[in-house]
Structure formats: structure tokens, C-alpha cells
């Protein structure tokens, strides 16, 4: 069973540790997304798995094989690259065939696999064209095909959709998910696009500065971010994160923002008992807010602030309110957004049990 695991991985470039004692493992058939900003080490990690760069220390296992010192071609992997990396002088068929050249398969088997991949990806009419005669989406299909013909148990994707336009990206996203459902390989997928991560992954590893910040299902990562970095990174528009303090009163726990607003925290599942006056960061997702100027049953807190502007993104709209020296973003129905005027004072309520709390000093979830 190809279970991919990284054990105590260290990677250093000239004395600088890019990855330091990193551990991560993913089960067979899972779709693991390595998500993080540029330079967080996610591509380095993928290249280590692919064998394109050598680990400084540690062990990489695929199934029960130690592949740390194996050549890339012997690791039983296939990879799709960001720039597609098709061989420019070969036809589409030639590209797919070359992908099998390490396998030393009989001729009929090669032809059978190439036809299978062509059919699966609907690139049959393109088989005799050169990469330069294909559109971006077609090239991406060929690149995926070249990886699929190998029948590898583990598929690696290095930001495969970032060169495509928005519409194609959505299409290819569905396509890759369909392929994963059909063929069920183990996938390791690197991206900086959180929408890709949220939609495709069965598990997300959020990385920053060479460290895995959180490893969990998309829901876990979104609903219960492990620390301030994850909270700020996942979600668009981003979570509202504000400094505040714990205040205990009348047997209940509340958070008091530095700007004065209060929010009830009775329903929050504290990992440790909160201490009076402890500095915290409170995170409020924009989409949890109630409609503007409307009552909300059992609201944990209410904010009355002047509107700066509204922003419409097709099916959604976001209102931005002046809040101290920053902004408070909250989701609005697009129909309502048109009625709101900048400068008006808006009242929005936040429901109970939805807030995220972090230790102000360590940034860890409370």
C-alpha cells in the first residue's frame, strides 16, 4: 500500500535549514494538498519526494520502501509540472510514450496505455500535434496524461493550474478530482491557491517558513485553524483578527476588544481554562455575521460601525466597516450591498460559538 511518509526530514541549502525535522504522512488514496505562501518550502518538499533534490537528513518512505536514496525514475512516481514541461520537439503521442521509457514495456502495452490516457483525457484528436500547437488547457491535459500513463501509485502535482485562466482552472480542477475518484492514486498536490486546496484535498498541510502549521481535513483547517497563520491564510475575504482580552463576568466568559466591543465566549471550547485579562486574538469569519441592521437571535456580540465601502464578487458581497485603525469585513447579501451607503453606521451581529481564539503571545489556538 503506497502510504507516503516523510520522517524527520531536514533540507539545508548552504547551512540554512529550509526544512527542519519535518514529519508528515499521507494514507493510500488520499489527496494531500501542501498549501502555503511562496517560499514556504512546499515545492522543496515535493521535489524531495520526487527525488529531484536530495534530503540532507531524514527518510522518505513510499509504502514500505525507503526511497530516500533512489533515483527519481525508480520511485514509482509521476509528476505534473507548473509549466507543463512538455517536450517541445515531440508530438503529444511522443510525449506520452517518453513517459514510459523508463518502464521498458512491450510495444503493445505502451500503445494500449497511451490510447487509454488519450481517451480518458479526451485528447485523441491532438495526438499528432506538437505542444506549441496546443492551447494552455490542452497542454495541461497532455501533461497529466504523461503522468497517468505510468500507472504510478503516487501522483505529484506542482502548482499545475496556476498558468491557466480562471475558467479553465475550474474545469481542470473538476477534471483532476474526477481522475482521482476514478483511479484513486495517492496525490500530493502543491499550491498556493486556497480554493484549490479547499475543493480538492482530502487533507491539507498548511506550511509556512518550512514548518507544517496545521495538518487536517479542509473542514478542520477552515473551522478550527490551529494558529494565527492558518487563520489569516485560509479564507477569502480573510478572517477578522483583533487583539483583545479575556473578561470574566457573571459566571460567563467574554472577550473585550481593545476598541471596546464585547463578544460572549461562553460556547467556546477552551483547551485550557481562560484567565482573566489574558491577552488574546479573536478571529471572526466575515460570513458568520448576520445581515446588516437586522436582529440576530442569541448574538454573541454586536458591532455598530461606519461603512467604508462594499465589494461585490459575483455571487457574494463584502462590507468593510471602519473598526479602530483597521477594517471589519462581513458578508452581505449582494442585493443588500447595493442599498448600503459608505459613511452610514451599520450594525452587524456575530453569532455564538463561531469565534476563534488565539493566544496573543504564541499565536496558538486556545
Amino acid at each position, binding site marked *: 500500500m503506497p502510504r507516503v511518509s516523510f520522517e524527520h526530514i531536514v533540507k539545508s541549502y548552504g547551512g540554512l535549514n529550509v526544512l527542519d525535522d519535518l514529519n508528515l504522512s499521507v494514507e493510500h488514496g488520499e489527496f494531500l494538498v501542501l498549501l502555503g505562501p511562496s517560499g514556504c518550502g512546499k515545492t522543496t518538499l515535493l521535489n524531495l519526494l520526487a527525488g529531484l533534490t536530495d534530503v540532507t537528513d531524514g527518510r522518505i518512505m513510499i509504502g514500505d520502501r525507503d526511497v530516500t536514496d533512489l533515483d527519481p*525514475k525508480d520511485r514509482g512516481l509521476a*509528476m505534473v509540472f507548473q*509549466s507543463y514541461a*512538455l*517536450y517541445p520537439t515531440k508530438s503529444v503521442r511522443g510525449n506520452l510514450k517518453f513517459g514510459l521509457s523508463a518502464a521498458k514495456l512491450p510495444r503493445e502495452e505502451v500503445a494500449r496505455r497511451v490510447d487509454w490516457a488519450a481517451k480518458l483525457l479526451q485528447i485523441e484528436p491532438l495526438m499528432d500535434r506538437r505542444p506549441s500547437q496546443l492551447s494552455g488547457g490542452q497542454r495541461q491535459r497532455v501533461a497529466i496524461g504523461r503522468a497517468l500513463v505510468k500507472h504510478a501509485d503516487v501522483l505529484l502535482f506542482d502548482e499545475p493550474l496556476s498558468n491557466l485562466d480562471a475558467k479553465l482552472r475550474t474545469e481542470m480542477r473538476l477534471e483532476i478530482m474526477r481522475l482521482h475518484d476514478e483511479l484513486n492514486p495517492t496525490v500530493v498536490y502543491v499550491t498556493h491557491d486556497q480554493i484549490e486546496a479547499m475543493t480538492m484535498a482530502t487533507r491539507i498541510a498548511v506550511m509556512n517558513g518550512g514548518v507544517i502549521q496545521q495538518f487536517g481535513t479542509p473542514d478542520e483547517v477552515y473551522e478550527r485553524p490551529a494558529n494565527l497563520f492558518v487563520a489569516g491564510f485560509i479564507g477569502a475575504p480573510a478572517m477578522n483578527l483583533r487583539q483583545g482580552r479575556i473578561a470574566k463576568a457573571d459566571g460567563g466568559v467574554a472577550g473585550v476588544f481593545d476598541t471596546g466591543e464585547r463578544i460572549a465566549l461562553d460556547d467556546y471550547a477552551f483547551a485550557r481554562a481562560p484567565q482573566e485579562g489574558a491577552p488574546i486574538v479573536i478571529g471572526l469569519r466575515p460570513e458568520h455575521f448576520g445581515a446588516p441592521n437586522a436582529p440576530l437571535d442569541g448574538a454573541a456580540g454586536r458591532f455598530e460601525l461606519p461603512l467604508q465601502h462594499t465589494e461585490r464578487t459575483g455571487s457574494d458581497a463584502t462590507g468593510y466597516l471602519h473598526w479602530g485603525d483597521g477594517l471589519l469585513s462581513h458578508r452581505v447579501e449582494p442585493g443588500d450591498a447595493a442599498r448600503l451607503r459608505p459613511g452610514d453606521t451599520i450594525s452587524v451581529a456575530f453569532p455564538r460559538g463561531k469565534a476563534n481564539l488565539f493566544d496573543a503571545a504564541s499565536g496558538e489556538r486556545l
Partner: protein
Amino acid sequence: MTQLDVTEAAAGATVIRGRARARRRRGLTGRSIAVLVFLTMCALFFCVPLYVVLTTSLKTMEEIRQGQIFALPETWTFEAWNFAWNEACSGITCEGLKVGFWNSVRILVPSLILSISLAMVTGYALALWEVRWAGTFLFLLFLCAFVPLQIIMFPLIAITRTMGVYGTIMGVAVVHSVMAMPVLTLIFRNFYKDIPREIMNAAIMDSGSFWKIFVEIILPMSGNILIVVLILQITNVWNDYLVGVTFGGFNTQPMTVNLANMVTVSTGTATYNVDMAAALLTAIPPLVIYFMVGKFFVAGITAGAIKG
């Protein structure tokens, strides 16, 4: 011809005067006239001697003795060309330039194959594979590219003699290849360095074989640089005199040496028409190659479209 171009350009300027004012004004500035005059002079600088060489080679000796070197021949004759190719004496052999021509070809072919194939594979390895001490090696190559042949001439003679190729065609070819290696390797290395890293990574994951990747992926992408190197190397080898005269034996001297022996005759009168014809014959092959290959070069650029 160049003057014709100038008048044509002037005529063109008149034609477009009506519709493109800005362009017309630019076309008439003193600066552009100065450029045209300068270019015309440059062209004349090369064209006039060439004209004299060409017409002289087509004249008879009687006509040449009249001393009008700019006049067109009264009777056009290829007698001198025929004589230069088939009968002219170089040293003690009188079989014309054709001996030197074939020697040059026999030097050219192995030296091209040897130098280009070696430089190509070395450049490929240095650019796309992790080679230990690659940086040091490149620096040494770079230094070697600046060492003049004259400095290492004597040791090179000793080395080729030990190898048993001194005074043979292979000897000349080997020396040419060795001398060309630094520059050619650097050229190939710089060209391959621009091949996207991801293509190489994909190939490594697909095949992992040094030679398979080279033959199937890298070589087909090298068309343009091959043409450039071919032109460079053919011109170099064909026009060389020093290596040929030093390392070639008596009967294995290249065309340039043959020509020099023929022209620097110490007895009898100088047969200018034969000399000119011989000089032209020696100069023609690289030109022909240049025009032939240059055409492929242009075709390669338009059809290639490497970048995705």
C-alpha cells in the same frame, strides 16, 4: 548596388510623403543621410577590391599587363580558373588547387564531428546535470578560450607526434577540434542552460538516462545552436592557415596552404589572373555553406517555437 539602394530609399520617402508626415521627416534628417553615406563607404571598402579580384581572374595576362585594374575584361575567360583548379603548381606538385580542396574537406569533416559532438555532450552535462567541480571546470575552459595557438604550438607538436598523428589529416583535424573545444563547449553550455529546468526534471523522472534524454529530448532542441556552431566552425577550419601549415604533412596540406604556396612563387612572372581565381576558389566554400545553412537557420527559427 548600394547607391541604387540609396536612391530607392529616397524614392520610397517621396512616395510615403503624402500619408506619413512623421516618418517622412525622420527619413530626411541629416543623421540618416550620414548613416547611409557611412554604410555605402563601408560597402565600397569591401566591394571594390572584390570587384578587382573578380574581373582580374576573368582576364587574360595580356590584358592585365595593360594596367587598367578597374576595367572590365575585354574577353571573358575562365582559363585562369581552370588552370588554378587543375594545373597550378604548389611547391613541386602541379595538380592545382583541387588537391588542397579535398584535403581541406577531409580535415573539415572529422574536425567538425569530433569538436561539435564532444562540445555538445560536455555542454549538456555541464548545463543540465550535476557535475562535481563544474564551476572550476567552466572557469578553466573560459581561460583556455583565451590562450592563443602560438603559445602552445611546440608542446602541441610534440603531443601530436607522440600520438602518431603529426603530419597527417587526422592530426590537423584533432588540433582544430581541441582548439575549438573551449569556445564551443561554452556556447553549448550557455544554450542548454536556458532549457527550462522543469523539462529536464520531467525527463529525469520519465527516463533518468543521460544518453536517452540527450538523444531524444535535448538533441532535437539544439537545431538553432547547431547551425550557429556549424557556421562558426566551418569558417574557422576552412580559413585556417597556421594549423594547416604546421601540422599538415607535405601532401596533406589544406587549401589555404596550397593557395599560399601557389601565390608566393619565386620564379617566373606572377600570374595575377590565376592567383585571383585561386583566392576566390578558396573563399567560395564557406560562403556557399553559409548561404545554404543560413536558409535552414531562418526556417528553423520560424518553425521551431520552442517556448510553450
